[in-house]
């Protein structure tokens, strides 16, 4: 890794790491006695380790090859491994909190092990740790390949990847210490949020600079999606996290918004985190790896345009459907509801575009579990976007809201769509990235596919059942005109479904562990084989262009 950096770059990296370590030290000193102090030590340790890694190789020989002749894949490799480690950690937390719902005593004495603190570790661990790392890593890969250009610098890709992981570590470690803004999916406190802004701006600049260096006349669809992900997530993150720290030496802060404005801002953020983090970024992944693996042209460029602009335009309006029947004014709810319904068609157009692309390659879908991951992801994407638009309709939401149906819906998206496309992409990417002939074990990929699919199906079905039962129990009246069931009655009715859900999650976690093992074994034991034409060139030099359907 270090051998691909020049001496000057190593010095820069060491300076940044040293500066970061100093900030950590300052945080540790200023925040003494507060969780911020603990975070200071974590920051110090993080940058300290980086500093020594770079320093130990400071005087190693300079890179000999002309780096412009190859893509820069080192950060992608590390990103993929980090994504899988976060997947295992985050999904383990998920199985743990799911089990706590079925068996509440499954915890330790300390407050850190309670459901309220572990649950955000699960959500942030899988969304940001697993999803975020996978998005950053695949975006590095895809933006270089579809631009036929190497990334402009060697330092900024590392800064983004590692800086993002530092954010994830600060977030997760904060939650178990009780540090939270109490905003769902935006729990991390002010200094972690500021750090993420810095990282994200560098990410945006890196992406734009790579695109501007491209040797292709046009920008491929996958890049539209990645760029929308980076740009909008920055806006969402900054606005929703506007807050005034209670002091500069502590973790606590107060949101700039209050009351219903706070709720609306939060769910504008919350739903668009689903849209621009968990949807558009992963659509970028889908748009690259699915046609690549299937060896088929994208079914329709025009459909891509329709769905891209439909998705980015409609999604930003729909957050208020999280606040039906609340203090939020009725008109805002109607707007959110109607835009959610209009959003369905562009979403289905994306899923349909992916599935129609597989026409002519269904034999491969049958034989190749990697492609099957991507196909199934598109199916779940279609399913959960339909379900989402349906649940956004006010009267339907009256039944589904606050129940496990919502949890099931989220997981149909997160497991069925986001995780399956990511695993499929990782299986497609790993041999290319490490220059290997194939994955270490295709049987393990098959096992993973069926574990992941059955885990998702068990999870989603049990939550559909429990959610609808919950919703109905809460609104069942006796002939006397009073409620029939107490809340505890509905909890008792949920118990079998909670056990089934934890089991489904366990299957999914097992699959993720197999994936990590398979990737590591591929790196260690599969013979080398360089992929063809995997280096930056001007597209004219490539004549004749690769035939489309070969």
């Amino acid at each position, binding site marked *: 890794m270090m051998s691909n950096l020049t001496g000057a770059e190593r010095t820069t990296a060491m300076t940044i790491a040293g500066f970061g370590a100093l900030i950590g030290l300052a945080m540790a000193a200023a925040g003494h006695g507060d969780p911020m102090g603990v975070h200071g030590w974590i920051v110090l340790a993080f940058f300290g380790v980086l500093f020594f890694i770079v320093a130990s190789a400071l005087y190693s020989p300079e890179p000999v090859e002309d780096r412009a002749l190859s893509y820069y894949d080192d950060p992608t490799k590390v990103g993929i491994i980090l994504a899988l480690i976060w997947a295992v950690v985050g999904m383990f937390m998920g199985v743990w909190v799911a089990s706590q719902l079925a068996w509440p005593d499954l915890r330790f004495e300390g407050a850190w092990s309670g459901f309220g603190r572990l649950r955000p570790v699960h959500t942030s661990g899988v969304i940001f740790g697993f999803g975020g790392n996978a998005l950053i890593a695949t975006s590095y890969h895809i933006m270089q390949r579809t631009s036929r250009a190497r990334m402009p610098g060697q330092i900024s890709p590392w800064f983004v990847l590692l800086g993002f992981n530092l954010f994830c570590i600060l977030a997760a470690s904060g939650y178990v210490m009780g540090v939270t803004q109490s905003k769902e999916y935006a729990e991390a406190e002010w200094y972690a949020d500021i750090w993420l802004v810095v990282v994200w701006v560098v990410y945006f600049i890196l992406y734009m600079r790579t695109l501007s260096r491209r040797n292709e006349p*046009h920008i491929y669809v996958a890049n539209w999606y990645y760029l929308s992900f980076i740009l909008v997530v920055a806006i969402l993150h900054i606005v929703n996290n506007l807050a005034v720290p209670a002091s500069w030496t502590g973790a606590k802060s107060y949101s700039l918004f209050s009351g219903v404005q706070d709720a609306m801002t939060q769910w504008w953020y919350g739903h668009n985190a689903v849209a621009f983090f968990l949807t558009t970024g992963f659509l970028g992944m889908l748009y690259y790896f699915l046609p690549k693996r299937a060896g088929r042209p994208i079914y329709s460029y025009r459909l891509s345009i329709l769905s891209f602009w439909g998705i980015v335009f409609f999604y930003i309006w729909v957050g208020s459907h999280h606040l039906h029947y609340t203090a939020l004014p009725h*008109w805002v709810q*109607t707007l959110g509801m109607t835009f959610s319904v209009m959003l369905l068609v562009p979403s*289905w157009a994306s899923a349909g575009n992916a599935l129609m692309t597989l026409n002519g390659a269904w034999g491969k879908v049958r034989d190749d579990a990697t492609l099957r991951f991507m196909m199934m992801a598109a199916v779940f994407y279609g399913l959960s976007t339909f379900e989402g638009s349906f649940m956004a309709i006010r009267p339907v939401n009256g039944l589904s809201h606050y129940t496990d149906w919502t949890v099931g819906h989220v997981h149909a998206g997160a497991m069925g769509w986001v995780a399956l496309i990511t695993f499929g992409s990782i299986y497609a990417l790993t041999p290319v990235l490490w220059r290997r002939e194939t994955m270490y074990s295709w049987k393990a990929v098959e096992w993973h596919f069926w574990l992941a699919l059955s885990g998702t199906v068990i999870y989603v079905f049990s939550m559909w059942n429990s959610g609808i039962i919950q919703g109905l129990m809460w609104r069942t009246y006796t002939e*006397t005109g*009073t409620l029939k069931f107490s809340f505890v009655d509905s909890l008792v009715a949920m118990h079998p479904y909670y056990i089934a859900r934890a089991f489904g999650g366990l299957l999914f976690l097992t699959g993720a562990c197999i994936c990590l093992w398979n990737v590591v074994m591929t790196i260690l034991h599969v013979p080398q084989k360089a992929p063809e034409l995997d280096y930056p060139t001007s597209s004219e030099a490539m004549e004749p262009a690769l035939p489309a359907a070969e």
Partner: protein
Amino acid sequence: MSVKEHDPLTGHQTTGHEWNGITELNTRVPRAIWFFVIVTHLYALVTWILLPTWPLVTTYTKGILGIDQHEQVAKQVVAANVARADWADQIVTMPTDEILGDTVLMSRVNATAHQIFGDNCAACHGRDAAGGPGFPRLIDDAWLWGGDTDAIMETLRVGINSTHPDTRYSQMLAFGRDGMLGREDIRIVIDYVQSLSGIAPSDTPVSPERISAGEEIYLDNCAACHADDGTGDMEQGAPNLADQAWIYGGDKDALFETIWNGRQGWMPSWETRLSEVERKTLAVYLARLGQEATQ
């Protein structure tokens, strides 16, 4: 460069662009997509006309149906209250004995009280009202402040050691911690108290001298609240020590802890949280549960 090729499978033309082997067809957007775009947009348009939707500067479009969610809720609450009025009024006005004897009214009470109890009381007193360590059992005839429906109603209204101005107030003093009784005296009085409720020590019988010494300590320190015969005093919420019901446990360790550190249980006031109908319904429900359990 830009060579538009035909895809042999579909016959469609590509856009002529190529990215690392990926090409795109220029297929028309399927009619079904346009159809559903139109359908969903019409749905939205109709909804916008009917319901409050678009913000104007100081107001918003109200929609021709004139629906507002706050008004809807207010109407539904009124309607629900009207539907319940026939029996709800009876619950408030009728004496509890008559309610308990009225099978029609009792079916209302049973259907209603289960949920009220489950959502408000069960967290401490258990779903079956059987209590637990620290929380009284409600289905026996051992009561701190009285078990008739009027007394239960009052307890529900003001709570015990709560923030309500009329709260029932009671405290078991920390005799040991505050230096009023020594360890040995506490052990002696424990033996006496256990003898009151007939908890016979299993292996070593307590000598009559020790019992009478315990009685002396008891009369000096405990009888003011718990009464000379240990039957307690519902006027001040002092539990009966001569029965089998123990809130914090009747074994020696639990009693020692009680006498050493004192106790002060807490029950919230429900006056603002539950309506009078609901509180009376609960009181009648508990009276019935108590009757069934002690029969």
